């Protein structure tokens, strides 16, 4: 069920799912537990360890290099990043990436939500749309980017951030958004919609007062996907951004030219932004779940 389930699981975090104990929930653990626990720990170490290394190395002073041991402790490279011209237009590209990601997020949420509603019922040609979406997800990003460039060229429009790059990024974020919506909606109880209709709600009222509030945590998850996928997008943006760089494009040109810890400082800064966005999203989802549980004690918690 792909990454869509991430949000799904987030959304149902509080509600207990089926029991997952392979054997009785108590008693001695089998030897496989210990082997797999070690494997899992090593996986987490490999996942976070290297990232931690570059955060530490970005805090070196002027003498710092690309490898350990760390030399000094200062914010030199962060200052360097935002003041030196030779490292490129970091601040400008960051602002552009952020704005573009916001626009992509809003469009991803709206379009994915509508498509999610649409796919709940079969209609003629739905399979075509579905596989078009999957195709957009698996197609090589750089090739699509070139194709977008060719189309814009043929039509006579200049490639720019908020036209070609925006569209190219949407061709990547929307399939993810819709997949997340599928996961979220598979847990949506149609009885609530019918109840609203029976009570005389118009279709719009049903969506606004029933569907959106119930699906709210899932919609936040879609927004998280939309923002982070756009903010870090590289392959599709490379040929469609026009003359102005986004942050990942800036990082890419730095990886090829810069051999100072400034590169790591940039990595630290952009990861902090990502973590803030992830934290805010997961926090919002948890807050919504808590509030819902507080409001409706005794009822099932994670309907969304």
């Amino acid at each position: 069920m792909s990454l869509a389930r991430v949000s799904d699981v987030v959304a149902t975090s509080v509600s207990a799912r089926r029991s997952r104990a392979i054997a009785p929930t108590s008693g001695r653990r089998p030897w496989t537990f210990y082997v797999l626990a070690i494997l899992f720990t090593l996986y987490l170490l490999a996942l976070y360890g290297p990232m931690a290394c570059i955060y530490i190395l970005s805090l070196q002073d002027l003498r710092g290099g690309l490898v350990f041991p760390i030399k000094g402790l200062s914010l030199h490279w962060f200052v360097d990043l935002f003041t030196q011209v030779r490292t490129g237009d970091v601040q400008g590209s960051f602002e552009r990436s952020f704005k573009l990601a916001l626009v992509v997020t809003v469009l991803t949420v709206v379009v994915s939500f509508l498509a999610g509603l649409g796919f709940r019922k079969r209609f003629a040609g739905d399979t075509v749309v579905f596989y078009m979406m999957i195709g957009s997800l698996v197609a090589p990003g750089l090739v699509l980017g070139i194709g977008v460039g060719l189309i814009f060229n043929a039509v006579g429009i200049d490639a720019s951030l908020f036209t070609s790059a925006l569209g190219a990024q949407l061709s990547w974020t929307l399939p993810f958004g819709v997949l997340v919506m599928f996961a979220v909606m598979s847990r949506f109880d149609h009885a609530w919609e019918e109840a609203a209709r029976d009570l005389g709600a118009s279709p719009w009222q049903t969506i606004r007062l029933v569907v959106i509030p119930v699906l709210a945590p899932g919609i936040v998850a879609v927004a998280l996907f939309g923002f982070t996928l756009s903010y870090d997008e590289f392959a599709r943006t490379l040929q469609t951004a026009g003359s102005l760089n986004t942050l990942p494009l800036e990082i890419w040109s730095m990886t090829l030219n810069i051999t100072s810890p400034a590169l790591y400082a940039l990595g630290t800064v952009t990861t902090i932004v990502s973590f803030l966005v992830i934290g805010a999203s997961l926090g919002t989802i948890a807050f919504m779940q808590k509030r819902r549980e507080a409001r409706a004690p005794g009822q099932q918690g994670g309907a969304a």
Partner: protein
Amino acid sequence: MAQSAAFKRNLAGWAYVAPLVVVLIPFFVLPLIAVVAASFFETDGFGGLFPAFNLDNYTEILTSGLTFNLYYETIKFTVLTWFFSLLIGFFVAYFLVFHVRNQLLALGLFLLCTVPFWTSNIIRMISWIPLLGKEGLVNEALLKLGLIDQPLEFLLFSSFAVVVAYVHQLTIFMIVPIFNAMGRIDKRVVEAALDAGASRFDIMRLIIVPLSKSGIALGSIFVISIVMGDFFVVKVMSGGGSASVVGAFYENISVLQYPTAAASAVLLTIILVITVGLIIRFVDIRKEITR
């Protein structure tokens, strides 16, 4: 009457997906058609494209030994990455679903695995440099332990580094769908098998793996399509030692050889479609995703 009801349902469906289609047609369908068209065109070598039906671009790439090498390298990385990410992803998911008894803990650990997915891939890739370099942590540690006399050269800027970076980035694409598929396995089936005297290996072979097949298929589609469509990791992590199909495509574009690049992109897309198609033959992903 029934016909008009069906018509209304279709209309409503299309109205909901219309915005999606409005984005996908100009930014997925048309670009793909443009690339296919460009693969038959002629060029003046300065970026100008002239409509034609020219198969030279295909004969050029199909007869070149370079093409064979590119595909060999790309497929090698794809297979290696697929194998290791599947191996790690499967057992990580299996551990979380069947061995962690506390639900909330399992979920927390699962989220911990997914967080890096929402951060920059490029940064996660370059974060291997201080570890794997000639003076990196791994070499330093091995030297100190006396296991080696001189730094291992193959750790960074090598095929090894490429596979490490890919597996690091993509294992999450295996973990999530497999975790999800395993989460749906009824534990009573496993307990029944245990009661009937099945061994641990039998349970894995006859229950867990078959019932996780849909997750494995979905994860494989993600990993294979991403590795085959990538050029960045190979370019940076191989240190120029290896090339990739999309990397060569990029080089061709930068010297304005659009038709040759397009022909190679079409070839890659065909291989990708066949691979994904073969996987889909075994698993109805639409049913799997929407259920």
